């Protein structure tokens, strides 16, 4: 009698557990299924077909063939990748000393205050920050005027629309995503290790190479991966600071999809960008010997 009651209660709570699990699973599956998995599967199908008449399509790899035969696509693709790598490295070099100052040199309140100050600009949207750079750099802008006043150039020079301008904008916009993982990985480095290295006669560079960088490697990897991805996928900064000469791959995707309404070609270009982004993430993780989940949880 009593064992039967316990049994039915057990069944009931198991059933409750199942129901609870189903209710909790539903939103996640709806989100990932309807907004991530199915749209990407659809995009893949789209990229693998060719239009041969009104509302008539056949499976084909024509879109990808176009990418390989049309030098413009190739050129822009490689250019975007190379510029993104340069921007990532510049961001790392620029942010590392600041992360060091925040994590190791400044103490207590000064350290957290400095960190907060460095993060302030990123509370404002990228649009506003880019507007600032445009006002600073355009021909009639602040810096060219200043250069004339100082007698360095005789006429105002156009500082916008160069590759270097795009890089400045990309680095600026990426700093936050490099600083946060760098600071947190440097903070966890025990100072006594650095002192020990010094006592044993290591110079600054040796200590950096053998102690600091191996310890900070997870933070460096996480920062570089995030920055690279965001740079590769950026649209606003290259198009506004680079103007017509920006030649950024996301711009090609936009043109195919929105301007020319050639969704098949746009989907193929989108997949190529996704492939590039994903493969570089995987290579980055392999190099650092880390797992994707751990890195994302750290940041």
């Amino acid at each position, binding site marked *: 009698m009593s064992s039967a009651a316990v049994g039915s209660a057990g069944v009931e709570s198991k059933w409750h557990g199942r129901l609870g*699990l189903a209710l*909790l*699973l539903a*939103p*996640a599956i709806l*989100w990932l299924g309807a*907004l*991530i*998995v*199915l*749209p990407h599967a*659809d*995009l893949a199908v*789209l990229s693998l077909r060719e239009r041969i008449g009104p509302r008539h399509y056949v499976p084909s790899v024509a879109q990808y063939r176009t990418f390989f035969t049309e030098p413009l696509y190739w050129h822009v693709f490689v250019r975007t990748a190379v510029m993104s790598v340069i921007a990532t490295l510049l961001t790392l070099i620029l942010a590392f000393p*600041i992360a060091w100052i925040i994590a*190791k*040199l400044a103490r207590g309140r000064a350290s957290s205050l400095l960190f907060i*100050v*460095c993060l*302030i*600009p990123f*509370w*404002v*949207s*990228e*649009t*506003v*920050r880019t*507007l*600032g750079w445009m*006002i600073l750099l355009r021909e*009639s*802008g*602040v810096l060219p*005027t200043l250069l004339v006043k100082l007698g360095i150039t005789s006429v105002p020079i156009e500082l916008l629309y160069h590759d270097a301008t795009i890089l400045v904008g990309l680095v*600026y916009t990426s700093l936050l995503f490099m600083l946060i993982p760098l600071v947190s990985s440097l903070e966890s480095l025990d*100072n006594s290790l*650095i*002192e020990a290295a010094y006592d044993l006669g290591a110079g*600054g560079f040796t200590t950096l190479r053998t102690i600091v960088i191996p310890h900070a490697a997870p933070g460096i990897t996480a920062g570089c991966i995030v920055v690279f*991805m965001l740079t*590769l*996928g950026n*649209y*606003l900064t290259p*198009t*506004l600071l680079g103007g017509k000469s920006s030649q950024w791959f*996301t711009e090609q*995707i*936009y043109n195919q*999809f929105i301007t020319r309404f050639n*969704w098949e070609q*746009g*989907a193929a270009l*989108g997949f190529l960008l996704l492939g590039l*982004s*994903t493969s570089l*993430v995987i290579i980055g993780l392999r190099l650092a010997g880390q797992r*994707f989940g751990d890195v*994302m949880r750290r940041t």
Partner: protein
Amino acid sequence: MIPSLPRPRWLRTVTAAYLAAFLAFLFLPLIVVAVFAFNDAPYPAPPWRGFTWDWFLGNAGSGRVGLFKDADLLGSIWTSLVVAAWVTVLSVLIGICNAFLIERKNFAGKQMLSLLMLAPLVIPGVILGISILAFASRVAEFVDDTFGWDWEYLRPGLPLVVLGQFSYIATLSTLTISARLRRFDRTLEEAALNLGAGKPAVLRTIVLPYLRPALIGSAAISFLMSFADFNTTLMLVGAQAPLTVEMYGRMREGATPVLNAVSLFLMLASAVLALGLMRGGSRNKGTSAG
């Protein structure tokens, strides 16, 4: 190197100079934007021609349309606010569900699902945008062909913008809320259950109050990310443009300092939000310690 080791004088000087240069680099664009919001000239460019409120208050008739009279700009701010509110509510709700799913439940494929939840962060925003655009249009076509229904909200427009932004912001709220739930001391919950509280009561009086800082934090992040989103929004936007898209369009054409005015307004708003969060954060720390 570190303060406990001797540092040569030149190294200290170089460090200080580098820090100063870095801070100048960080703040110069923002300062320039703020200053030229008040310049008495039709374009945000030097020289300085005196102080004016025109770019905030100017009337449409005077040739200088100020922020508070610019119906398009104000409309786009409102659009952004509505979109951000939707994205925030959806993201926090799904963040709570996912946190309980990952931290409290065990099921086949859990590892895969939690990895899949991180995927939206590594997919470029432009691609999230086009994939949702293409899929929505396919679904719209399908229901039109089979049932003859016209699902207007699957065409580019605000509902799709909300979904597009939500698709990756949900990951951020999931990460924030589940990190907090992971640190929760489950003995508190057991104690309440032992004392006779039902499961809903425990959730309401113990677990949710504990999660509060993470809920507020993820709501703020979601709101801010949605308000600032450009890549995904650009692909999904219809006739009604949110602020970032509106500003982008005007920046390409070379706009008047009214854009500086709206930017300054945004800076002040995010400063208020940041200060509010920090105060809230320190108060929460105080109460949990006390």
